[in-house]
């Protein structure tokens, strides 16, 4: 099963840092996501894109995870050579990850 079957997600950007939220539709799935979608897995998944560390924050109040990926935007939104300088499309890729 892919994450998109049970989650939604949005990407934000600040400088060369991308953050991707992962939000289960059903809050009952949150403990399972915490167990299975680790920072290490996300780091490996985006290994060609994220050159720095990935930190995972658990936001228990709203039952969501927030992945903060450093050195992930080609040097930063304002100077990246990429088409998608903000990395807006990264959330769609994360949702394609197999659970």
């Amino acid at each position, binding site marked *: 099963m892919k994450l998109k079957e049970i989650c939604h997600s949005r990407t934000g950007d600040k*400088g060369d840092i991308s953050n991707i939220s992962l939000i289960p539709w059903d809050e009952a799935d949150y403990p399972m996501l915490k167990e299975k979608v680790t920072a290490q897995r996300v780091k490996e998944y985006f290994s060609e894109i994220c050159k720095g560390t990935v930190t995972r924050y658990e936001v228990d109040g*709203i039952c969501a995870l927030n992945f903060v990926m450093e050195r992930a935007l080609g040097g930063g939104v304002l100077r990246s050579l990429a088409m998608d300088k903000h990395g807006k499309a990264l959330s769609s890729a994360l949702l394609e990850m197999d659970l």
Partner: protein
Amino acid sequence: MKKIRIGGGAGFAGDRVDPAVTLIERGKLDYIIFECLAERTIGLARQEMLKDPGKGYSRLLEYRLSQVLKPAWEHGVKIITNMGAVNPRAAAAKAAEIARGLGITGMKFAAVTGDSVYESLPQYADEPILEFEGRVGQWTDRIVSANAYMGAEGIIEALENGADVVITGRVADPTLTLAPLCHEYGWTLDNPEQLGQCVLAGHLLECGGQVTGGYYADPGYKEVPDLDNLGFPLVEFDETGRFTLTKVEGTGGLVSVDTCKEQMLYEIHNPAAYLTPDCIADFTGVRFTQEGENRVSAWGAVSRGLTEKLKVNVCYRDSFITDCEISYGGCNALERARLAGEMFLKRLDRLGVAYSETRVDYIGYNSLYRDRLAQALSDGRWGEIRLHVAVRTDDRENAVKVSNEGDSIYTNGPAGGGGATMRISEIISVFSFFVPRGAVRAQVAYLTV
């Protein structure tokens, strides 16, 4: 119980204006905010002001205010915006001129300044840059602007003095919302629950339609009604600090617990410590509740006190980027695009072009996710591919050489390339450093029509 209603009238400089007019006319608002100042905008604005001292504010100020001033005046809605960029006083003068032209009399404009630390940069020469190795002084020759993220004090002062329209330079985005609430309810750092809620509300409002179903729709997964008539958000506060986020009835879009969750984490790193000049906000205990159709209440954000320092954004002349694109079709499209990309890079070296970085993308295949993910997500067949080559150079002269080479792919490259485009952009980038709070003091100037 005293209720205050604030609308989010814009999510970025070029945002739609008609949803803001709808908010003003039908949202029963007390205030509307317009967040229109991106990081690099301020650098571009300062370059404009150097050429013309009467400029240096948001290029779309006239376009926006000419449509919203009159309805705001008629409906008693006060306007708070950072459209002043590097010249809020000139922006206020322009706004007053627009108001006069609309036949408005009695409207009071305030310009909040004090965020620029450009003149005092020499004293910060040894300060470390936050984003990369280096110190501020090493970049002196390239620096265009330096502005601190200011907090609410200037806006609050303007509102206390009866301003109807408050125009600022660089303030933190949530500050635009926090300031009128602190003005109305008298909240300070001694009200941590309320202050945290103000930052949360400001954060949810600052991107306009992104919390009301914009940037959310995904057919088959996330349905959003009437995107073409997307309503912008408004929050209704009460004295406890609780607020409800909604939109004007009859507009398109969607306000749900999930749209609010997505937007709460947008551009947030550590949710326990969201740093703003007004307070350190902790969002980890936030709860959203669906109160009705398109109505979500929020509670649980708190302030964890004040940072000792303020962040300064420095805009500097970075480099030039030349983007060249050309399309290939048919079942061998990717192979021909690859051949063209390889040829392009070899030509740059053959011509001795001085460049510092290159990137080759095959749009339709790997431009978003690079190769490994692209292969995992695709079925291995493409009917068309658009080649994109981006090259960074230090000067325009070399950028032009890159662009000319892009143009020549047509007749000298692989078969059947079409739709070539070339674009050269001068890149203004941003780095940051910290200054003590005392280094920045808000000043407010007034103008009444």
